[in-house]
């Protein structure tokens, strides 16, 4: 997947923000007002305490009450604004992540099949969930925190300077100490944490791999040996976790120590200034409160930075998908083909998934309207390549494919694919009702047409026996149906379509004999009047085909009718004869 730098990722994330200018402005407003209010409060409390004369114990109660009311108001508004900020930021990050999810998903749909062939679903799902969540968490938490921190740090620094420039000198010691500790911590911790997650990942990967083979391990009685191997990895992971923890266990106490240290310094100097009569008691108290506020964000700084870095890494991976090259149609396309007869021709086609390794070289053949082409050959020989090219899931490297005499690349992909209907061995049913599954691809089909198709596919009776008939929901890819029933449903789906060309991947016989006969009959009906490309497994299909393409190691090695090929006595003949040995 494409790599774009962290800087570019940051810039692009920023662009998402700009789409919600009002929310961003609102967030800034609430952040500033809320935090300034929180900063004003300690001064008010200081003044309230100052209204108490420490020598005589006389108290100006009116003043105290006045300040207390002001303080309370400050806190109430500050909390209200903080909540408003949370609300706005949640809304903002929700909008942005939703938009990202939709963009990434739409992008996925626009990508060529080769993208899917090259990646595991889990990897892409991770990006749409885990990566987007990481970005989301960073957007809604870290940005608030950064804004709050900046305001708090500067606000409390200014307040402290105003309260007592002299006492503020304490921070000449504290701040460099904090920065030193923070920098040191992130330098030491990052590799330790990376190692920790790496080792844990290794361990989990190992246990997942081994559990996937648990039958085999038990079958060979190797439980103890595998457990021993696991133990080595377990030891490594535990050690890495401990190493990170060992160092990490210093962090909390050190941060607290620095806080305590500043408390001690401020108490001693503040007490001294107070004794000298150069600073009022209330201000010492306020100063202590500000000093806690001041050091807090500085301690958090390293955490925020590392969170933002992981968010940027996640954003990079997302943008990587968004930058993938989509399936593009050429320019000056012809309008969608009409009244297709179903005449398909390969003329001198060259093709390779990897341009350096051609799998088809100069392949030519013609399928006349209504005729059947059988593609045969051993597993993995590349029978699906021809289907991939017909449907333009992949494009040819040389030569061309012609539909009714027109090069297929001159049509938009969608228009071209509309001329085909497919029944694949990997039956694909989605979560939805039986009716929706059959009508998928022909949205204007009437209920009568759908039932007609189901009847033709020998599946109508079965559908009626389901609890809600045609409205029964299929869950989890139709896991509640047998393989044969799923095949019949996809045949029904193909029946609804009016396309003139059929691509059929004949199922191997892994259904019981009765269903097998139903499937065969339905398939026969489906093939009537269509140009058919069949990845064939049955002798009857092959013997009666108008043209047989024999594929071996990716190449079409022979073509002709059954009789012609037997006469040639080549690879096909040897395959055919092998079964009688």
């Amino acid at each position: 997947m494409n790599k774009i730098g962290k800087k570019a990722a940051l810039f692009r994330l920023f662009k998402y923000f700009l789409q919600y200018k009002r929310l961003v402005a609102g967030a800034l407003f609430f952040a500033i007002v809320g935090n300034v209010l929180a900063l004003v409060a300690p001064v008010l409390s200081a003044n309230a305490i100052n209204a108490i004369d420490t020598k005589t114990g006389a108290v100006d109660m009116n003043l105290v009450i006045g300040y207390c009311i002001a303080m309370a108001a400050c806190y109430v508004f500050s909390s209200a604004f903080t909540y408003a900020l949370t609300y706005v930021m949640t809304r903002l990050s929700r909008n942005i992540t939703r938009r990202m999810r939709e963009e990434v998903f739409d992008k996925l749909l626009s990508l060529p099949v080769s993208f899917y062939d090259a990646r595991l679903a889990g990897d892409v799902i991770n990006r749409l969930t885990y990566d987007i969540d990481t970005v989301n968490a960073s957007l809604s938490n870290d940005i608030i925190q950064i804004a709050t921190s900046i305001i708090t740090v500067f606000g409390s620094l200014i307040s402290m300077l105003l309260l007592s420039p002299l006492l503020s000198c304490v921070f000449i010691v504290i701040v460099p100490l904090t920065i030193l500790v923070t920098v040191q911590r992130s330098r030491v911790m990052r590799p330790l944490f990376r190692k920790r997650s790496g080792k844990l990942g290794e361990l989990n990967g190992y246990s997942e791999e081994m559990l996937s083979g648990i039958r085999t391990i038990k079958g060979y009685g190797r439980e103890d040996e595998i457990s021993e191997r696991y133990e080595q990895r377990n030891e490594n992971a535990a050690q890495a976790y401990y190493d990170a923890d060992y160092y990490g266990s210093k962090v909390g106490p050190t941060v607290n120590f620095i806080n305590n240290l500043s408390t001690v310094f401020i108490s001693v100097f503040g007490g001294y200034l107070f004794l000298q009569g150069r600073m009022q008691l209330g201000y010492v108290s306020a100063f202590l409160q500000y000093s806690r506020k001041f050091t807090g964000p500085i301690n958090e700084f390293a955490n925020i930075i590392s969170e933002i870095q992981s968010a940027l890494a996640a954003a990079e991976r997302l943008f990587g998908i968004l930058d993938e090259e989509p399936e593009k149609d050429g320019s000056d396309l012809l309008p969608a083909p009409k009244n297709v007869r179903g005449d398909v021709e390969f003329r001198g086609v060259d093709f390779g998934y990897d341009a350096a390794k051609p799998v088809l070289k100069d392949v030519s053949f013609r399928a006349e309207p209504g005729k059947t082409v059988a593609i045969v050959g051993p597993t993995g020989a590349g029978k699906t390549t021809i289907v991939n090219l017909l449907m333009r899931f992949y494009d040819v490297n040389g030569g061309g494919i012609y539909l009714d005499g027109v090069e297929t690349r001159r049509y938009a992909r969608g228009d071209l694919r509309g001329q085909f209907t497919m029944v694949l061995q990997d039956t694909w049913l989605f979560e939805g009702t039986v009716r929706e599954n059959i009508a998928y691809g022909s949205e204007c089909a009437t209920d009568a047409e759908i039932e007609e198709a189901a009847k033709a596919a020998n599946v109508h009776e079965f559908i009626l026996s389901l609890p809600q008939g045609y409205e029964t929901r299929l869950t989890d890819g139709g896991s509640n149906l047998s393989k044969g029933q799923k095949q019949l449903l996809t045949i029904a789906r193909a029946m609804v379509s009016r396309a003139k060309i059929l691509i059929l991947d004949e199922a191997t016989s892994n259904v019981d004999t009765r269903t097998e006969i139903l499937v065969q009959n339905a398939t026969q009906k489906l093939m009537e009047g269509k140009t058919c490309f069949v990845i064939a497994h049955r002798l009857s299909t092959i013997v009666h085909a108008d043209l047989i393409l024999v594929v071996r190691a990716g190449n079409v090695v022979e073509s002709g009718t059954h009789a012609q090929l037997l006469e040639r006595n080549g690879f096909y003949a040897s395959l055919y004869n092998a079964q009688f040995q």
Partner: protein
Amino acid sequence: MVRIRNYLRPNAVRMAFGLLIKATGTVAELLLPLLLGYMLDDSASSPVKDVKTLLLFGGLMLLFAFVALYGNIIANRMASRVAREATQKLRGDLFSKTLSLSARQIDACTLPTLVSRLSTDTYNVHNMLGMMQRLGVRVPIFLFGGLAFAFALEPVLTLILVAVLPFMLAAVLFIASRGTRLYAKLQGSVDGMVRKIRDDYAGVRVIKALSRTEYESKSFKEVAGQVAKDEMSAGIWTGMSNPIVTLLLNLGMVAVVLVGAFRVQAGVMSAGKIVAFVSYFTLILNAAMTVSRLFVTLSKGAASGRRICEILNLPEEPLLLSAPEGGSARVEFDDVSFSYGGGKPALEHISFSLKKGERLGILGATGSGKSTILQLLLRFYDAGSGAVYIDGENVTQIPAERLREKFGIVFQNDFIMAGTVYENVDFCRGIAEEEVVRALRAAQAEFVFEREEGLQFPLAAHGVNLSGGQKQRILIARALAGSPAVLILDDSSSALDYRTDAALRTAIAREYPDLTSIFIAQRISTVQNCDRILVLENGREVGLGTHAELMETCAVYRDIARSQGGEVCE
């Protein structure tokens, strides 16, 4: 009964010692504001000893700060050690236990949850063990110690604290409990979204073929919209927690100042105490806020601990049972019936017997019970009725190790691990290299020797760098390498072409003449040369005999033969 606490017991002394150190450090930290209060008061009332007292108190505070620092660091490290040792042992035990589970127990738990127990749950427990020792001591000491000191300092103001705390805890708990439900709902809609993506990923060819991208995009928007909605409601609900807690804390502080001022005016309290009190207030309330975080980690860890112990406490299965001896055959099924979940029988009244060197083919559609026979032979499950014998012994009385030594098996979609060819064929059994080479050659895996690395050729996990046929040949070599008495291939030569398949069968017969073999298959050509073929339909025997006999007597066999008659490929 195994509990997580058992794993802490070996470290009990270290843990107690660590907790003691932790408590000392924490108390020292807690004394700081107390000193501050006394310092400001003392100095104010007796100006003579001013600077000296100030420095004395300052020095004391510094000392306490250091005690707090080192006490906490040492204690935290001891805690990490305890957590590490307990978790490592727990995880190791869990893994061994998982491998020893019976097939029935695995079915009941399902593999994905076993994997997540080993990864996520042990991680949560590790976190919990660490945090419990670190914060679990600190937070209560801060909370209750703080309250005690505050009470000693000024009982009346403490009442304000005591009044605020329940509100805060109630707010935190209320928000957290509804928040948990909202997050569970969110998880549900995220699952829905993942299902949608997975669905479309699998069906991309169909979607593109039918030009349905717009429709899919629209329906994804609905799912994603639901996720966004749930994210929003969970976010704004839990987002209330912080402002409310802060507000309560701050209002309490206002009350402290106000009430304090009244008390100073009444002459029952000094002003310096207000300052110290405000510091305590912050400490105690920060601790109260940490409680909610602690609570989350602890409840997560406890839930995970329960899930782990559930597995550790599963009974040892299967037990050895005494049973009568059977006949002299190598493998014998005597009127065996069986069902997986107690529902529809997977096998009914199956009987056959095989002598040394004989070959049995088992043929039938998916779900007809072919693989169940293998599961019963290996005693992954026990027969419901009837008996399974190996060399005259009932399988239920043979210890698992001795039983499984007799077999060489290749399962359907069997597993190749990341490692060399040698490691995969040897499979941790310590088999000599010549034996491995002999097995590879008999399994027609010549392609291994065409590689430069030979036996050391590295295979990726799940064998993704091999073709289907190559994978099957490595697996067959693994089954042959241990020189088993019985070889079972469950649909394991389906990716081989006819010639290789035939060569394989010839080589096995030549190299391992005494081997009793069972071939489970869907394709007739794989089994037609066997001494006997068992034809299954819906768990029942519908034919047993040679190819020629079955062609005459068994209608189902003939049907299959006819439908496969033209199979020139696959």
